[in-house]
C-alpha cells in the first residue's frame, strides 16, 4: 500500500507527502483527530510516532512531544487502539515510527500481529540499522508490514543496496547528519546525493530531517519521490492546534504540487 501510494504520485509526476506526528500529542485524545486532519490535508503516507522515554535520534521538538505524550499516559497498546479507530475512517497508509525497546518489551511477534490488525502498513525502528539484528529484521520483513529503512549522509554508497534490500515501501534519506528538527537551510549536496541513492537501488526515496517550509518541501519534491516533514508540524500542532497543523500540511501539499 505504501509502495502504491508513492507509485500513484509518481505517475502524476509528483512527490508523496509524508507527515510525522507523535501519538498522544498534544493530548492523549487528539491522535485520531490529528491523523484524519493530515489525511484530509493531502498526506500520502503518515508516520505515527510511538513515544519512547529516550529518543536519542530526535531533536528538542520531538523529544518534548514524546515526553508530553508519555506524561499524558500514552502506551503502545493505546497507540494501536487509536490507529484502529483511524483506520475505520480513512485509508491513508500509516508507518509506525519508534525505537526498539517498546517493541521488544511488547514482544516483537505480538507487536507485529497487533500492528497489522490495527491497520499499520509499515514500521520504522530508528535504532535498528540494517544488519544489527538479523533474526528480528527477518521477522519484520516476513510480516505484512513494510520495514522502512534509513540511509544517512554518512552511509557509504556501497552499503545502500544492502540497506534497500532489507527494506520495503520506501527508503528514508536523512538529509543531514544530526537529530530530527526543523532547519532553515538544506545542504547543497542534497540533490546529488538523492540522485546517487535512487540510482543505487529501486525503492522510492523520501527525504526528511529539517524540512520546515513549503519552499523547502517543493524543492525536495523536485528531486525525491517523497518529502517527510516532522518537527515543524509537531511544533505547530503543539503551539496552535490541529487546524493549524492541517493548514500547514495543506500548504506543503500545494507547494509540492505547484
Amino acid at each position, binding site marked *: 500500500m505504501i509502495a502504491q501510494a508513492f507509485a500513484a504520485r509518481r505517475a502524476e509526476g509528483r512527490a508523496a507527502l509524508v507527515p510525522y506526528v507523535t501519538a498522544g500529542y498534544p493530548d492523549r485524545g487528539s491522535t485520531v483527530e490529528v491523523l484524519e486532519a493530515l489525511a484530509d490535508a493531502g498526506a500520502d503516507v503518515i508516520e505515527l510516532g510511538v513515544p*519512547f522515554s529516550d*529518543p*536519542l535520534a530526535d531533536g528538542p521538538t520531538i523529544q518534548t512531544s514524546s515526553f508530553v505524550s508519555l506524561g499524558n499516559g500514552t502506551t503502545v497498546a493505546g497507540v494501536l487502539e487509536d490507529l484502529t479507530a483511524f483506520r475505520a475512517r480513512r485509508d491513508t497508509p500509516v508507518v509506525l515510527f519508534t*525505537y526498539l525497546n517498546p517493541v521488544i*518489551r511488547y514482544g516483537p511477534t505480538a507487536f507485529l500481529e497487533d500492528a497489522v490488525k490495527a491497520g499499520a502498513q509499515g514500521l520504522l525502528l530508528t535504532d535498528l540499522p540494517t544488519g544489527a539484528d538479523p533474526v528480528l529484521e527477518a521477522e519484520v520483513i516476513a510480516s505484512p508490514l513494510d520495514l522502512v529503512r*534509513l540511509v544517512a*549522509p554518512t552511509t557509504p554508497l556501497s552499503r545502500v543496496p544492502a540497506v534497500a534490500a532489507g527494506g520495503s515501501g520506501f527508503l528514508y534519506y536523512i538529509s543531514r*547528519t544530526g*537529530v530530527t528538527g526543523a532547519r532553515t537551510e538544506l545542504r547543497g549536496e542534497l540533490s546529488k546525493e538523492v540522485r546517487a541513492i535512487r540510482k543505487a537501488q529501486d525503492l522510492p526515496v523520501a527525504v526528511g530531517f529539517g524540512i520546515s517550509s513549503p519552499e523547502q518541501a517543493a524543492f525536495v519534491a523536485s528531486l525525491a519521490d517523497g518529502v517527510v516533514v516532522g518537527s515543524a508540524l509537531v511544533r505547530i500542532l503543539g503551539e496552535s492546534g490541529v487546524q493549524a497543523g492541517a493548514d500547514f500540511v495543506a500548504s506543503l501539499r500545494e507547494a509540492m504540487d505547484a
Partner: protein
Amino acid sequence: MTAPTVADRRFGVFGGRYVPETLIQALDELTEAYAAAGTDPEFRSELAGLLADFAGRPTPLYHAQRLGEVIGHDSIYLKREDLNHTGAHKINNTLGQGLLAKRMGKRRIIAETGAGQHGVATATACALFDLECVVYMGEEDVERQALNVYRMELLGAEVRPVGSGTRTLKDATNEAIRDWVTNVEDTHYIIGSVVGPDPFPRMVRDFQAVIGREARQQLLDVAGRLPRVVVACVGGGSNAIGIFHEFVPDDGVELVGVEAGGAGLESGRHSASLAAGSPGVLHGSLSYLLQDSDGQVAPAHSVSAGLDYPGVGPEHSFLKDSRRARYTYVTDDEALDAFHRLSELEGIIPALESAHAVAHVLRHGPEYDGPIVVCLSGRGDKDVAHVARLEGRGSLL
C-alpha cells in the same frame, strides 16, 4: 580484514549495535582503527608509557589490616585505583581512547559524565593531547558535583548541562549521542563505561583490564595465591569489568558486582539493573535495563551520581546469566556508612561509588575463606561536600 559478524559484536545475546544509521560508518571506522591500534607496538608502548608516567600506574594493592581486624578477616586488599591521576580508574580508558582519537584524526572529543570522574579524566586526556573537549552532564549532577564541573573547565573543557528527562547520567548520554550523530565526521565520542554500541563495551574493557592484570600479579606476589573473591561496584560497570576480566578464567575466584540499591529495591528508587531489571535496548546495546511494562526506561536513583544509571554494560549481563559473576546490591545508607568506616579505619576516603563495594565487604567479608580483593575505583574528595550536605553539615562548606 574480514568484517566482524554479529556474533563477535556481542557477549552471548547481549550487546550489539542498536544505533541510528548515521553512526554505522563511524562505528565501522572505530572498530577498524581499534583493531589496528591493538596490534601496533607503537600504540601499545605509547599508552603504557602514559599509564606509567602520567597516570601513575601500577596502582598499589594495599592490605587493609584495620578494616580486616574490625570485621574479622585477615586478608582484605584494596586495589588503589583512587591513586591514579585524576583520582579514579577512568583515566585508564580516556588515555587509551584519546590516543586512538588522535590516530583517527578526530579533533573534537565529546563525553558524558555522571559523578564527573569520567568527565575530568576526558578533559585531562584532551588537555594532554590538545583536543577540543565537550562534556555532557545532567543538571542534577552538575549540582551534586560542582567541584568536578569547575575541574573540567579548568582543564579547558566545556561542560554542557543537560536539563531533559531525568537530568542525570542517562540523559547526559542521550545528549552526547545526539551530538555524535550530528558531528560524527570530526568527533570521537569517549564513552566512559563498558556500555554503548560495539566496539565500545569491549574496547573500554580492554583499556580497563590493566586493573585486574596488575591486581592478580600483585596478590600472587604478596600472598602467593589467587583471591577467593574480587568485589567491585557496578553502575555501567567499567571498573568491575576492568578488575574481573583477568580473573574470568580462574574458576576458583568468585566475582561479585555490587549495584546501587538506593533506598531499597522494594522502594523502586535504586539503580540495580542486574538485580531488578530485564533485558532491553538503551544507548546502543541489549542489556539488563530498568524499565516499565511498556518498555519505557525507568528512572534510576543512587546517592552516588556515578552509579545512577538504569542500564549496565552488556558483558555484565552475560556474566550474570552465565553465572560466572554474581551481582548483589547495597543501599544508600550502607554505602554512606562504608564511606565513613573506610575513612576512619584506613585513612582512605573512598568515592561513594567505591563505597558500595566496601559496604559489601563490611557485611559479608567474614563469609569468604580467603583473600578478598576490592576495587577501590576512586577517591571520595568529590563527594565530601555532597555527603556533608546530606548530613546537615552543608553550612561548613
